[in-house]
């Protein structure tokens, strides 16, 4: 079974110019949404926003920069900053998205997708074609659902 047989095709996505305010609105309206893909004009996946990226806005700057500097213990405290209301429009998706992310191909097997989800400790993975265009999204539950369906349970 392939990833394209189990993935969700109606993906909520944003552009790099989407404002922080609009982005927060999208996160709010969807129950359990761990990531939002960012695409460019020809639907190519260029970044991902995780809820963690939003939290980083409330943390002192450079938290990310020190992740692997030896001996540094970063106090991951949030709420230390006092963000200004103007941030809602001034900050756009491009400022906070992760440009390093894991994807899975549409023709990869479900077993590979499962392995990848475990290996990278993420809940969902974006699915792309060979040119890197976003086709869908796949998570643990999509795989479970597909397996149960295969066995005739649902």
């Amino acid at each position, binding site marked *: 079974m392939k990833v394209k047989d189990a993935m969700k095709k109606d993906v909520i996505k944003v552009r790099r110019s989407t404002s922080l305010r609009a982005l927060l609105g999208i996160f709010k309206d969807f129950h359990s949404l761990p990531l939002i893909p960012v695409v460019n004009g020809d639907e190519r996946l260029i970044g991902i926003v995780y809820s963690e990226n939003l939290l980083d806005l409330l943390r*002192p*700057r*450079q938290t*990310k*920069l*020190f*992740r*692997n*500097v*030896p*001996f*540094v*213990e*970063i*106090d991951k*405290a949030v709420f*230390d*900053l006092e963000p200004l209301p103007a941030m809602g429009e001034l900050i756009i998706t491009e400022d906070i998205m992760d*440009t*390093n*992310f*894991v994807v899975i191909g549409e023709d990869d097997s479900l077993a590979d997708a499962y*392995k990848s989800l*475990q*290996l*990278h*400790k993420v809940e969902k993975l974006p699915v792309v074609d060979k040119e890197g265009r976003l086709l869908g999204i796949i998570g643990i539950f999509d795989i479970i659902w597909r397996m149960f369906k295969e066995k005739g349970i649902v």
Partner: protein
Amino acid sequence: MIESPVLSLGIIFILGFFFSRLIKKLKIPTITAYIILGIFLSPNLFNLISENFFESSGFFTNIVLGMIAFSLGEGFSLRTFKEVGRAVTGISITASVIPWIFVTLAFWFIFKQPFYIALVMGAIASATDPATTVAVTQEYKSKGEFTDTLLGIVAIDDAWALIIFGLSLSLAGSFINGGANLAGVYKDLLKAFLEIGGSILLGTIIALLFNKFCHFIHTTKDRLIYTFGFLLLCAGSAVIFNLSVILACMIFGAVLANINRTSFDYFDSLREIDAPLYLIFFVLAGASLKLDMFMKVLALTAAFILMRSIGKTSGAFVGARMVGASTAIKKYMGLALLPQAGVALGCALVAKHTIGGVWGDLVLSVAIAATVIFELAGPWVTKLSLVRAGDIGIEE
């Protein structure tokens, strides 16, 4: 005295744990606590752990230095440079290179030390301590342009320091038994450049191999084994071929960070095992200190502290001027960069093993003494500069 290496390790871990707890109450940083523990356990004082065990410190030094260099290599990605910006990159370079030159020249000309010792001491002077800096900015909730610039600098400047140290040690190694005439000097230089080039080549090859086969990783356990394995492969090959462990591992990390999109996962995986290795490393550093030597190098230590402080302040000033930074950054950044700890000690330990003998002990003694002082006074100085720069509010 305990002869069994296994029991020695156990005792070091447990004592390290409780000792760092105890000493944290006195607001002394963990690394200093480990060094002091090392001094206590060494043949100098309580003689609890056999000297044979401490003699084996080269084994841990290579592994831990390899890990530190590999992790810092991650910072050498285009992404990081873009994130911290031109100003921070510029200041980080001058604030690393100028102390190196200052201390080297002072040790060579004023204090009449051999050139290779001066070079190594200079290189050690360029390291800083990101951990203390971050801790101070967090404790005092410092914020502003100065803080941002400072944090950006300390996030990448130890990588420069390691490059400088790697280069210096290669040069120093060639000069230890160096020729007295000009032909001899050329031969030494050629040897050093071969070592540096070889290390860069080795790190690159290891990174390419790593990237080629990493799709065989299936679980998070696989990932740790694979990453650690390749790291040891890199460090070990460097030792076998007489190359620089530091440069090779750093290039390995840097190349990997630039060619592999999910490289952050590999760097993260090492964090699971680094704590005990770091503990051993610093206890060994403390235990390697010869206390009688320590007394003899007081003057040199004072000189090192003074020249490094002047070097850092002027280095940061020059860099800040070049990139057109604010007056506060020009005036106080060097001061804020004074704390020094882990990387400097690691370098000193490697230098001790490479140089050996009395000179090796001298380098280590000066570095440890200076580190302890910079580590104790550093947080206070950093705080002072943050207050002066106006990034910490003065409480009424």
